[in-house]
């Protein structure tokens, strides 16, 4: 009788741990998804700001067509690189490409004092930098969640639960910190 009770107790404990470990993974995945939506909202906000920025620069520097078109193309590429279609790394590269073109655009704008004095342009720059600051912070929160999840997913014994229930690897989202770069550009 006693060995039976002992075995039962062990099985209950193991079952309890299994439920606990599974639920913790579920909570972590939910936290990762919530963090990702924080990034996604801010990336969309940046995508929405770019056309206004391009239109404002175009009003003062129409002949900088090559730079303007490059920004528009990079924006289109970033918008099309959705996590449903491409990897997180590819999306990050597309966003870096957009950052690079926006940096070029702001560098061009430095040569037009009237443009730099334009209140609408300055307001757009401010919104852009603030959005990029929020992207950088959201990215760190997301990566912190992914790091904690991956640590558990690979550790013994929780790796067994991850393997049984198919908790898959999550990628870090690494992009350039555009906020600091663009804020520095505006201070000149």
């Amino acid at each position, binding site marked *: 009788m006693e060995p039976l009770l002992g075995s039962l107790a062990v099985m209950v404990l193991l079952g309890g741990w299994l439920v606990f470990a599974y639920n913790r993974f579920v909570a972590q995945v939910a936290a990762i998804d919530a963090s990702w939506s*924080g990034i996604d909202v801010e990336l969309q906000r940046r995508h929405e700001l770019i056309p206004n920025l391009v239109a404002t620069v175009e009003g003062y520097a129409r002949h900088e067509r090559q730079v303007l078109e490059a920004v528009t193309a990079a924006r289109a590429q970033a918008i099309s690189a959705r996590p449903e279609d491409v990897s997180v790394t590819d999306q990050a590269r597309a966003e870096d490409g957009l950052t690079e073109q926006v940096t070029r655009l702001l560098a061009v704008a430095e040569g037009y004092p009237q443009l730099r004095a334009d209140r609408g342009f*300055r307001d757009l*720059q*401010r919104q852009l*930098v*603030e959005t990029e*600051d*929020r992207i*950088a*912070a*959201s990215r*760190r*929160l997301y*990566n*912190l969640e992914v*790091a*904690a999840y991956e640590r558990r997913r690979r550790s013994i014994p929780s790796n067994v639960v991850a393997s049984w229930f198919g908790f898959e690897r999550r990628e870090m989202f690494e992009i350039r910190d555009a*906020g*600091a770069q*663009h*804020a*520095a550009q*505006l*201070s000149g």
Partner: protein
Amino acid sequence: MGDGFGPGLVLVLLAVAAVVVGVLLWRHAHRTRADLARLAERDGLVPTVMPLGLTADDLAGRFVATPHGDRRYGLEYAVAGPLTVRLAGDDRTVDGAAFRWWSEQRRTNHNLNGGTSRSYERVRESVAVVRLPTAIPGRVVVRPESLFGQVGLTRGGQQLESAEFNRRFRVEGGDRRLVVQLLDAAVQHELLEAFRGRSIELAGDVLVLGGRASRREPGLTGFVGELPVLRADAARLLGAIPPAFWRAVGLADPGRA
């Protein structure tokens, strides 16, 4: 005669010792007061009982560095005055105060008969308070991690990238994004280098830095030697905060980062 000589001599010696200790304490207190006045004159500070307009009642229990304790509390050696700090690349003058906070904490003593008695121990904490030019939404608290937390048993709060930072500090704040904007890699490094064991609290438009100053200024007696260093430590800490944080709370114009 011989029987009474021993206790009499002891009493005389005790009286002499008491007088010597009394004189030393009086001289120390006198020198401390003189040095406090000298420091105030040198650095343009004002001795006060209400640093930045905050009374002891305002401070008690409101911040990690100013606990309410179990009986009495108060502040001493408080000085306040303008402090130049670098925020988001700009030099600004803000109000900065430094003082020593004390509170009495209850101790329960067990005696040999199995009974208990209560006593109160006075606990002291060095504090710097700075009035910020903008209000922080909510509250961010960075405090030393407990011993259990350091070994990973009761670690709570918001975890950051640096394992060493997480081991040394517990971070609490309602707005997680603002917390990561405040504690970037450079600030985490700075806190580990120069603010280990100290508490940092941003609440409204006030920064409260608790814990012993990084050093003591020679030439100033006792705790007075900590006062200018406490203010300098607060200025150093504010200078390390990244521009993105100040932009997020509406202090810095992105065009002037």
